[in-house]
Each structure stands twice: as C-alpha cells, then as structure tokens.
C-alpha cells in the first residue's frame, strides 16, 4: 500500500490504523465484552477459560494474562479497548499508561505532577528523548536485577 503514513516515525507510539485494527479485531472485541458486569465476573473467575472463548492468538491471550499492554498494542490492541481489562482489575488509566513506560506507579505519577514527559527529543525516532527505544525501560519497575 502506498498510503502516506507519516506517523510511523514517532518513538514509543503505535497509531491504531486499519492494519492494526485488523490484527487486533478479536483482542479488542474481547475487551468490549468486559463492559458487562457478568462477563467481568466470569473473566476474573477464570481468565484462561474466558480468553479461550475468543478467536485470539495465543500471543494475544498471553499478553492479556500478563497485563503486558505494550505487547497487546503491538498485537493490534487499542488502548481504549485494553482499558476495559484494566478497569476489570480495578486499575486506573494512569496505572495502565504508566505500566507501559517501565516506571513504577510512583515514578510515573511524579513525572506527571512535575509537568509530564517533555516532547524534546521525543518527536522523531533517532533523537535522544526519554521515549526513544534505546532508553527503555525508563524506570525501576522494568529493571531486571
């Protein structure tokens, strides 16, 4: 396809376009099902069994079980859909967003209170801002010991 997709050179950012949407169709539709209280209960009671009811790839299921949102997004998930999983687990949007940076909840919250992440160095791949691939993970949560 020769469509102009100028949004592919932004670090740490996946744009949910038709291609991603197709990849993530069942993953996202599974998320939608969690808008009903009875489905949330069934999912929480046995996540694996509930996931197996959906035509998702094994990788997608594993990303959900691990609550690995970066992985889920790379597999076609969209954050507004994925947020339903977070909501089911009682997590806030801030906790979910923070989890994708490698920061702890406190680190991420502190960054936001002090004005958020700067755009400097984060406009394009190849600059040196905090969101660039070579600087991941950013915080203590993602550090291996």
């Amino acid at each position, binding site marked *: 396809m020769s469509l102009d997709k100028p949004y592919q050179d932004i670090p740490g950012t996946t744009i949910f376009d038709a291609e991603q*949407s197709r990849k993530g169709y069942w993953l996202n539709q599974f998320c*939608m099902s969690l808008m009903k209280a009875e489905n949330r209960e069934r999912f929480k009671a046995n996540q694996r069994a509930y996931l197996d009811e959906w035509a998702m790839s094994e990788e997608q299921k594993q990303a959900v079980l691990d609550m690995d949102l970066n992985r889920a997004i790379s597999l076609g998930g969209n954050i507004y859909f994925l947020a*339903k999983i977070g909501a089911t687990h009682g997590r806030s949007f801030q906790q979910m*967003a923070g989890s994708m940076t490698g920061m702890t909840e406190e680190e991420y919250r502190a960054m936001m209170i002090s004005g958020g992440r700067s755009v400097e160095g984060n406009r394009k791949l190849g600059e040196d801002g905090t*969101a660039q691939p070579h600087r991941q993970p*950013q915080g203590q949560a993602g550090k291996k010991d």
Partner: protein
Amino acid sequence: MAKITASVFTSHVPAIGAAMDLGKTQEDYWKPLFTGYEYSKQWMKDNKPDVIILVFNDHATAFSLDMIPTFAIGTAAEYTPADEGFGPRPVPKVMGHPDLASHIAHSVIQQDFDLTIVNKMDVDHGLTVPLSLMCGEKDPVKDSWPCPVIPFAVNVVQYPVPSGQRCFNLGKAIRKAVESFDEDLNVHIWGTGGMSHQLQGARAGLINREWDNAWLDQMIADPVACAATPHIDYVREAGSEGIELVMWLIARGAMSDVSYDATDLEAARAHSVRVAHRFYHVPASNTAVGHLILENN
C-alpha cells in the same frame, strides 16, 4: 430562529469524573483543577442554554470495531451513561433534542457531510465529564442536567480520523443548520477532548504546555489558520491522544466570526468572539486540561 451564542471547550478526562463521583474534588491533587471551573459553573447558570450540541468522541464504548462512524449525530430522546468497566457513572440520564438533532442531520447531510444517524447510544466519559465540570455534581435520580443535549460523536480512535479542516468545515455547516431551525433556541456548542496527552507506549505521559497554549491562542484569534494544522502535528507535538483536539475545531467553526459560505462573509467580518474564560492545568491523570469559553459578540 435558533442561534449559537457560545462555545465551550474542555478536556474530558475520565479521572475527573471519578474524582467528582468519589468526592475527591477538594483533595490537593484535584483542587487546582476544579477551581478553574468555578467561573464556568456560574457562567452556565447565568447563560443557561436551551440545547447543547456536545461534540465528543466515544472511547470504544457505544461503538466497537463492528461499526466505526466518522461522524455520528444522536437523534434519540435520551441516552444512558455507559458502563465503561467500573459500572455506570452516578449521573443523570442525558435527555436529547430529537427535533433539532434531526433538523441538523437533515441540513448537514445535504451540505455533503456524510453523517451516521444514531438512535441508540450509551454515552461515556467523553460526554458526561464535560457536563459534570460545567454543571457540577448531580444526583442521578433527583437531579437532571440543565437542558437537552445533542451528542455528536467523532471518530478519533481508529485511523484515519477526520482532518482539522474537515472538522472546522463541519462546524460551519452545523451553524448554518441551527440558524435555519424555526424555533427560538439559545444553543451552545461544546468541543471536548485533549489537550496534549498520550496514553500508550514508552511515550505515555507526554505533555506539551507550550504547544497547547500556542494552539489555543491561534484557535481563538485565527481559527482559519488553526484549522489547517496538519494531522501529524497533533500526534507529534500533543501525543497520540492529543488528536482529540480536532473536535474543538467543530465548535470553533460554528462561531459567528467564521463565515460559513460566500453569502456570510460580510456578516462574519462584523462579528467577533469574546473570551469569557480560559484555563489550563497539568495534570489530570495523564492529561493536560484545557478549558475555554467563547461568546459570540
């Protein structure tokens, strides 16, 4: 004749709704934000509209991937606050205005905007948080919102989303539609979402205070130039979810200082808008909150 007298612009962060619903508005974290809306709540009482056209986006709530309308107008009699995963917000039902909504749909489709007409839709935080911010806490049963609301949903979730220019032109078409409605109605149009924020990936938490405020300055003073902001600029400068700002251009395009066609050029030149209120705050959860009230002079 119905007339748009003012436009209101505000972010619609879900955590703001939660803070109000859980009585946290006086906590240190939230107090500065809600203080910025004190003026607005009084202004709403002093300038009570008959109808609000509320431009927002659905966040994978009413619209799944089964059907994704670029622009959808609600012509129903009422709308229920949605269960977004935590149970529905404890706020009143939203009453619609089927007559004016159908009229707008009719007129705007004939102006070559390919709307989807919606008669059944639960409304999520994108619509209810702005109402809460502007009207204050409301008991879901005993209270009601001050007036009917016409929900106008814009797809900013799955790409391609409509351009700022398209949104701005849609605003003009909506004003033209409103002004051809026979009944005397005082109409407000609200643009919601934004400002800078990114909810995903290693770049989550992006905030761009400078860009937000420069964009706001331009949207107020030179909306035609602002409407030409390329799509990629929003994403690059204001974060992947900052794209929601294109919805503000729909409300801005509906103000009287913007000519809707050649017949309206002179009239538009004679008009100006007055900034009744402007507020900016970082952060609310992951987001930079912007807020503006414009009145037609």
